[in-house]
């Protein structure tokens, strides 16, 4: 997962859009039912041996992702908004196996992660398929948290041009 040094644009980095050839109901369940979620979550070669989902506003999830080398990464978060089968908003943090939030350094990563992030996923019906949009942003400590989700990336496009030259 080493980051390369080529700056990417905000669309690639923060917002991901995918069209799945499946009804929205099914994609929703793949996201919200542990037995489905465990089958796909995590990068190539990873498995998800544990997943608990309490799907309600204020409810908590706890996942464990296992690397091909056998290293476990736990993550947790709280659901902020749920509109079945259209939208999920939740926080996202590294955790220990008991669900306590830990800094990324807990997993030996250079501590360059915000403690808490915000994930927003929306699902739209699209010509019999499902268009899914994922937004993942860092929640800055001490700022109004709802604002962080508003997306600071619109001016990132222009900045990306600048960075390409820098």
């Amino acid at each position, binding site marked *: *997962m080493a980051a390369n040094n080529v700056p990417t644009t905000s669309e690639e980095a923060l917002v991901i859009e995918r069209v799945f050839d499946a009804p929205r109901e099914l994609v929703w369940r793949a996201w919200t039912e542990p037995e489905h979620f465990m089958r*796909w979550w*995590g990068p190539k070669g990873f498995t998800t041996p544990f997943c608990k989902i309490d799907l309600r506003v204020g409810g908590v999830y706890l996942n464990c992702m296992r690397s091909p080398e056998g290293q476990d990464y736990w993550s947790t978060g709280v659901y902020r908004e749920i509109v079945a089968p259209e939208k999920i908003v939740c926080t996202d943090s590294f955790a220990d196996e008991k669900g306590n939030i830990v*800094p990324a*350094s807990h997993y030996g990563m250079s501590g*360059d992660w915000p403690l808490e992030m915000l994930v927003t996923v929306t699902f739209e019906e699209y010509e019999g398929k499902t268009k899914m949009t994922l937004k993942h942003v860092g929640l800055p400590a001490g700022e109004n948290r709802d604002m962080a989700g508003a997306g600071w990336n619109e*001016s990132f496009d*222009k*900045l990306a*041009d600048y960075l390409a030259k820098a």
Partner: protein
Amino acid sequence: MSPDRLNSTFAALADPTRRAILARLTSGEASVTEIAQPFEMSLPAVSKHLKVLERAGLIARGREAQWRPCRLEAGPLKEADEWLERYRRHWEESFDRLDDYLRELREKEKKYGRKTPRKEDKNGRK
């Protein structure tokens, strides 16, 4: 980069005025007065935003002239971007798997001529 540094980068970027200021500076350095122009905001208010950006290392201010021109510093933005890149990979690869998994579910659905199984997936046979 320390977590504090990344946090201050994100905190600085979380404000629309500060994002607009950064966007303005992508077209070259500018004085406080020039930066303040498009905003209905006092110079001290703009200066406050500039201080936040400066503290986050997102801009630098010249010492040479009295008008102390502001310019963009690419370093922290690049680092924030690399951080985002890691997440992009995590999700892209997960979604490749989700794509395969959904296909598998739909094939099963066709084969058994029924709605997608809810329970039989539980024991994770492959």
